[in-house]
């Protein structure tokens, strides 16, 4: 596909994704934070369903050698980097998707978060080097280099090539695991609903409204437009 075609496909995909995320109030940050902090799973369930569909779709096409997989070596830098990212997204109240979506709703906090994400990226670019970790590209040759904290490159395609078992089989196993988590959440929600009915509590402390659950920046998103003045 030509670069223009790629950019156009990306823009169209982004536009639909942005619209759907805006209309559904989906938030990746909330999918993790609300499950941990408030025991509410609205976003977590959506995330799991999406991952189930993607796992089946991606591994099915990988089985027949189709699709553009992400191609780079991985290592401890993924764990540490996403650890920092995880703290950051909860503090900022938005992840990479919701910063763009909330910015599109007129949220100045989201625009501020985006600005500082860019600044953070630039600051890190100043300490990046080809030769030393993190992460050292000189040790990235698709093989594990434990001394460089790099584990090489592995995905459903390499699993298929090494074992001779079709990638979709591994995909089905992952689908099953994700589905088990999804079902466990549904059961937990049922139990919580039953407990609420039994105690007949007027408003459960563990399940606040979205507006209460949202952090600083996101809180206003769910406020009524009248409040904005």
């Amino acid at each position, binding site marked *: *596909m030509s670069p223009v075609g790629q*950019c156009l*496909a990306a823009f169209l*995909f982004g536009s*639909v*994704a*942005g*619209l*759907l*995320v*805006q*209309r559904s109030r*989906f938030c*990746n*940050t909330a999918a993790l934070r609300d499950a*941990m*902090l408030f025991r509410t799973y609205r976003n977590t369930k*959506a995330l799991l*369903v*999406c*991952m189930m*569909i*993607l*796992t089946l*779709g*991606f*591994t099915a*096409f990988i089985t027949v050698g189709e699709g*553009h997989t*992400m191609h780079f070596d991985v290592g401890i*830098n*993924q*764990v540490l*980097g*996403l650890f920092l*990212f*995880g*703290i*950051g997204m909860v*503090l*900022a109240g938005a*992840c*990479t*998707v919701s910063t*763009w979506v909330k*910015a*599109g*709703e*007129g949220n*100045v906090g989201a625009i501020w*978060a985006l600005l500082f*994400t860019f600044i953070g*990226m630039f600051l890190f*670019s100043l300490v*990046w080097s080809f030769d030393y970790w*993190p*992460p050292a590209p000189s040790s990235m040759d698709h093989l594990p280099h434990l001394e460089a904290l790099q584990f*090489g490159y592995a995905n459903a395609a390499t699993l298929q090539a090494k074992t001779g078992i079709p990638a979709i089989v591994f995909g089905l196993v992952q689908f099953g695991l994700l589905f088990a988590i999804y079902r466990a959440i549904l059961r937990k929600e049922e139990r919580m609903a039953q407990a609420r009915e039994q105690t007949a509590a007027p408003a459960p402390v563990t399940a606040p409204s979205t507006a209460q659950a949202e952090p600083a*920046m996101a809180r206003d998103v769910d406020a009524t437009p009248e409040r*904005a003045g």
Partner: protein
Amino acid sequence: MELFKKTLDPIVALSIIAVLDIFMFLVVGAWTVGGGETMMTGLIAKFFLGDQLSRIPFWDIVFKPDASYWKIYISLGMLFGAIVGAVLSKEFYWRVPRHLSEWVMITVGGLLMGIGIRLAFVCNVSTFFGLTPEMNLGGYLSISGIIAGAWVGSLIYKRVLEG
């Protein structure tokens, strides 16, 4: 139009996005945001620093500023789609954080997200909507990191909320 009158079920929204993401995976690559944001950072830095920027190895070797990088347009598309959604559903209005603590949390959070993405070479979108469904080892490493980070972040956030 019903879509702009009430909130859409996120499971429906994310299922549609999943199908479209599979199309993206086939034609160019799975949904990602961090790469596009990095390229935007490079383009902004080049605007201010000019050719001096190529003296920083990262911008010379890994991300040479290039406006035709497709991942940029996913982010711009999301912004556009969100504006359209917000305007048509009459949900667009300027929201400004009111307290200093909110500004501080957003600033620190933004910085940590930027540094984290570049350290990992991965963002949350690639983690959940790209790498893990491809069963890439990096997806599992990233998920363990982001869950631990979100847990620590939630503890900090809770403490700040409780004052």
